[in-house]
């Protein structure tokens, strides 16, 4: 196996800068890896091999010409299939958009291309980002590289699995209720949900507009920071984009240090439903932080227990409106004949999967006249209370921590018919989405019961994303030293060497 695929983005970048390896070689190595394993992992819905090779040649030519190149030049990136891309289809994991080639490019993929990153292809996801396992994909279920019989998490499961399976060193995801952190956790990699508005949503097909946040996946904290920095920053095409400097995330990732940092353990994010092995690894991580000089206290966020129900009113409400445009009139699938109304109904009936329909119905109901105040309106009030919980907590501590998700990766099929059980996967991640602040998941070891990875979630106030990387880097360095190797090398589902 080619050693290029096990190198981190930072290492690849350094090797390319030093002229030790070309972008073409790096790209080819990853394309080879995809060819070798993706029939088992099934992370990619589309691989843009020719375009990737062309981008790599271009980067090599620029480097040869002595042009200044950024840290991601020549580094391959896998892209969740809801970023619009020219030259590659964009399906959002849905049959209703099968074969749709957008005529425009998302701001973030534009920025990546401009930075010389190599877009390898589009990764599988739960349909329209609704799910925690990729089982809701209209195409297929992606496998967890630790155990191919288990889910990789979701909705950005394809991106997480691609990074964990060494098919790409970096990947783009989006987090609406935990869709980056939960798959990062169960795949044993790093994933960040930036501050809402810190990364542009232009060209990111909307699930829930007030929650959707694009973010990075990497195998290391530094890699995630490198991608975080390049993809972020104000975008005039997105009104909700924050016009402020990108927090110094790379700088923070290079200087992991928690001495004197005040860390709050959220008491509500524990208890029933949390797998003992996950809790054990989380507790160890907290002890580790304390041993590194952090001041750890317990913090109560009393309204977090209402976050899940509030989320399942707000997100479906926005989704019911955002997904109305998929009607067979202008693009994507069109089914049936007769009147416009009949075509719309038949197209949506055929094109959407069960979970998408469930959420459209939930959201339509919650917004209905006569029910709005009791459901959508009340959920927005809960959202305000959760923001106040965070504000109060961040008055006392610098970051909050919790497990990233209550359990390790669950077997494919186990929760597929039980939406409530599936929704619980996002129990720890949802409060951050509702409040719009930032959070990261970093690996914190393997659960004793199943030998599968658990994740530590670190939460920071809005625009304090750099704190996540400071804490993440410190945890990563200490654990790697304790374990003697990166956690991911223990993944048994796929042989790397």
């Amino acid at each position, binding site marked *: 196996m080619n050693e290029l695929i096990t190198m981190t983005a930072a290492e690849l970048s350094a090797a390319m800068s030093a002229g030790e390896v070309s972008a073409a070689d790096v790209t080819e190595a990853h394309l080879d890896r995809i060819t070798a394993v993706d029939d088992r992992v099934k992370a990619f819905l589309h691989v843009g091999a020719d375009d990737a090779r062309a981008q790599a040649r271009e980067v090599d030519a620029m480097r040869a010409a002595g042009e200044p190149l950024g840290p991601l030049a020549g580094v391959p990136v896998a892209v969740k299939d*809801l*970023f*619009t891309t020219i030259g590659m289809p*964009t399906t*959002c994991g849905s049959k209703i*958009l099968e074969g*749709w080639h*957008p*005529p*425009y490019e*998302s701001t973030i993929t534009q920025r990546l291309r401009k930075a010389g990153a190599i877009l390898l292809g589009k990764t599988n996801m739960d349909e329209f980002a609704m799910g925690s396992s990729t089982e809701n994909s209209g195409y297929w279920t992606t496998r967890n590289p630790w155990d191919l019989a288990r889910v990789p998490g979701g909705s950005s499961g394809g991106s997480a699995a691609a990074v964990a399976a060494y098919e790409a060193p970096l990947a783009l995801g989006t987090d609406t209720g935990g869709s980056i952190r939960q798959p990062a956790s169960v795949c044993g990699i790093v994933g960040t949900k930036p501050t809402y508005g810190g990364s542009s*949503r*232009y*060209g*990111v*097909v*909307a699930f*829930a*507009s*007030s929650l959707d946040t694009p973010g990075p996946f990497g195998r290391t904290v530094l890699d995630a920071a490198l991608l975080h920095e390049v993809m972020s920053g104000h975008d*005039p*095409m*997105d*009104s*909700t984009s924050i016009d402020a400097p990108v927090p110094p995330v790379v700088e923070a990732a290079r200087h992991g240090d928690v001495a004197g940092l005040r860390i709050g353990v959220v008491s509500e994010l524990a208890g029933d439903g949390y797998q003992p092995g996950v809790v054990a690894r989380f507790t160890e991580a907290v002890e580790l932080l304390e041993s590194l000089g952090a001041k750890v206290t317990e913090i109560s966020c009393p309204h977090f227990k209402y976050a899940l129900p509030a989320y399942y009113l707000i997100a479906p*409400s*926005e989704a*019911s*409106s955002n997904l*109305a*445009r*998929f*009607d067979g*009139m*202008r*693009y994507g699938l069109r089914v049936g004949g007769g*009147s*416009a*109304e009949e075509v*719309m109904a038949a197209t949506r009936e055929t094109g959407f999967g069960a979970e998408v329909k469930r959420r459209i119905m939930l959201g*339509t109901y919650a*917004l*209905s*006249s006569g029910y*709005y105040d009791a459901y*959508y309106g009340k959920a927005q009030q809960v959202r305000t209370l959760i923001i106040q919980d965070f504000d109060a907590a961040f008055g006392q501590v610098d970051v909050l921590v919790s497990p990233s998700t209550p359990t390790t990766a669950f077997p494919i099929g186990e929760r597929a018919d039980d939406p409530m059980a599936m929704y619980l996967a996002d129990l720890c991640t949802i409060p951050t989405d509702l409040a719009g602040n930032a959070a990261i998941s970093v690996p914190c070891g393997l659960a004793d019961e199943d030998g599968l990875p658990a994740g530590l979630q670190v939460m920071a106030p809005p625009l304090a994303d750099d704190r996540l990387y400071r804490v993440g880097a410190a945890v990563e360095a200490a654990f790697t030293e304790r374990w003697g190797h990166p956690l991911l090398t223990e993944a048994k589902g796929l042989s790397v060497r």
Partner: protein
Amino acid sequence: MTVTYEEALQKYEPVFGLETHVELGTTTKMFCGCPTTFGAEPNSHVCPVCLGLPGSLPVTNRVAIEYTIKIGLALNCSIASWCRFARKNYFYPDMPKNFQISQYDEPLCVDGYLDVLVGGKTVRVGIERVHLEEDTGKSLHIGGATGRIQGADYSLVDYNRAGIPLVEIVTRPVPGTGFLAPEVARAYVTQLRDLLRSLGVSDVRMEEGSLRCDVNTSLSPYGSDVWGTRTETKNVNSLRSVERAVRSEISRQAEVLDSGGRVIQETRHFHEDTGTTTSGRSKEEAQDYRYFPEPDLVPVAPPRDWVESIAASLPELPAARRARLMSAWSLSELEFEALQNAGALDVVEATVAAGASPADARKWWLGELARRANDAGIDVSELPITPADVARISELVAAGSLNDRLARQVIEGVLDEEGTPDEVVAARGLAVVSDDSALLSAIDEAIAANPDVVARIRDGKVQAAGVLVGAVMKATRGKADAARVRDLIMERLS
């Protein structure tokens, strides 16, 4: 049983209200950078945003906010210091996203009024709200009898209009206008249109759809303290139709009520050809639009100093202008209203500014020019003649170089684009014949040819001289100054 309009109004008090949609004259659309120009090749002024492509996001056009605030201020509204856009959800093929970005319970402007001059009286029409939204695309339904989507073979959609900023101006219900209701409704729309034009925020062309009206009408028996059920009449596409739609709904509803029926709250469609309305969709089967705050946009929070600077930049508003012109030109309310209703205020003012007397300027614009504009089916301001041209013609008449008849020929020449008034006079040879010797020979001929008329004049019947004047004017093909001819005839016969 048919109820006449007069009979209806003896029993019932009409209440009407208007919802007026105005396309703003911004250079670009409400939420994207596409141009707003009318009449382009279908689907050429579109982009991912106004086509609502997956992943696209709206960004608010600041100029549209500014124009809306202008309208609100000119209508004496309060301007919200913080408000949001909302999504109005419903499925229709000309809606790219199947929701319209509009405003719901937080409009940008609220609680204003417009003083409307009707029949020499001022009626204060309350303005409930002025809000901003995006226009939809335009559907063309091919086949089928009605031109509507039901029964059509297929439909074509043009998204050039999708996303053009649209302001909706909603009046409060207007009671107490009685027989004048249709006229007040029309005058409101006319004066609102003039106001919007003077603000420079829209080209307000009803025929191109940049100003569209829905008319709400209800009737209640006199003395009743509850208003009747209202209907909403759509497809009212001209000022005349506004008046006819109210009139027709008053008669129709009176007939329903008189025969013991009840008026159904519904949408009705106005038909230009018959001047009547037919039933559309009933409100009872109306959609639930599931409004909620638009999460893709940040709230609109116009800073106080910005609103104040917009207020300071407003042009003279109609009420102030009315007071100024009535005093400067010594007009009665009725005379002013005639000018206003003819849409001639601007051109008359410009003509006066170019040197004509107010009386002459009014005479030409309300007379000959109004007639010609009416024949052509356009506004007087759209005639291809400038206020400076009219002032020059007026000057030539005052100087005796033209008489009224010749002046009308000059106007005709200018309208036919033959050139400036002076060029038309020269090219057509229209100067008044002022050379007495040339006139005298024509006068002598007329006297010789009409001995009986001459005899009657000499008997003291001086008014008979008109016959001789006519003959001379005919002989000079109208180029003579009739007063001068009369003087010369009387001298000759004395």
